[in-house]
């Protein structure tokens, strides 16, 4: 019985290992870069998942693409630019800071600030 259990666990662990380790990196640094990039890029097919999590075939192709680019020595910026050139800023979960997105970045702070100023003004007036 014990032996059967042992073998069962072994088989189970083996399958886990196989599922995770599709991409072989030469360094742990590359591996972290891969994990970081695939988690910060949006899958375009199922838009609420990142490329690391998505099971869509396109996400698989993009993982492969990112893997190859890391292997051939491309920097993170180069890889992100490569994808933005093709799919647009939509692929980024973190929108870039530029003229088109300035409202997106600052509006929450402006609203917060005006809310607080009004609150302070109102309380002072009440006293």
């Amino acid at each position, binding site marked *: 019985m014990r032996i059967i259990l042992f073998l069962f666990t072994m088989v189970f662990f083996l399958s886990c290992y196989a599922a995770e380790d599709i991409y072989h990196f030469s360094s742990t640094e590359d591996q972290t870069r891969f994990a970081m990039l695939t988690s910060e890029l949006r899958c*375009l097919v199922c838009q609420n998942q990142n490329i690391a999590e998505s099971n869509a075939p396109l996400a698989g*192709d993009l993982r492969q*693409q990112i893997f190859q680019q890391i292997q051939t020595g491309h920097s993170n910026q180069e890889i992100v630019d490569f994808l933005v050139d*093709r*799919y*647009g800023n*939509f692929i980024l979960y973190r929108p870039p800071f530029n003229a088109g997105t300035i409202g997106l970045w600052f509006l929450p702070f402006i609203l917060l600030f005006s809310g607080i100023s009004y609150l302070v003004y109102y309380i002072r007036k009440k006293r």
Partner: protein
Amino acid sequence: MRLFKLIRVGLPMMIFLGVMLLLWRGLTLHPAQIPSPLINKPAPQYRLPNLLNKKMMTERDLIGHVTLLNVWASWCEACAEEQSTLVAISQNKNFQIIGLDYKDNLADAKKWLQQYGNPYEVIAVDQTGNSAIDWGVYGTPETFVIDKKGIIRYKYIGPISMEVWEDTLRPVIEKLS
């Protein structure tokens, strides 16, 4: 004092209406249709075999014609839906229709063309999907309008109905030719 009262009542009202307007607009947007950054840029380079005669094709084939480049696959259900429209509009000789067969089984692709019709001048085969990544393809069917100089001018995502053709694609093509 009166001004203050006006602001106190009016401002929240304005903000409320603004938010409603924003949300109202959100209802009519199509988040699944992601705008392509390739518009007004030259078509990406490619070198792909022709489905029917294995001859190599490149982006230079686009020069000199207005082109409708249609990305399809035999496994794609929406592609079968738009095929009758493509066959009908392929009678028009002001432009050429080029197919890009995306991650497909070649035998299935040929059978599919016999079943649904072949509107394509030529069909490039992209079995790995790498070339489609260069085109920013994320879901078939997708259709690009490319001008005579090989510049991408328009992208339509989703199946082309006769209505889409008349209202959207035809005006774009007529402007280019």
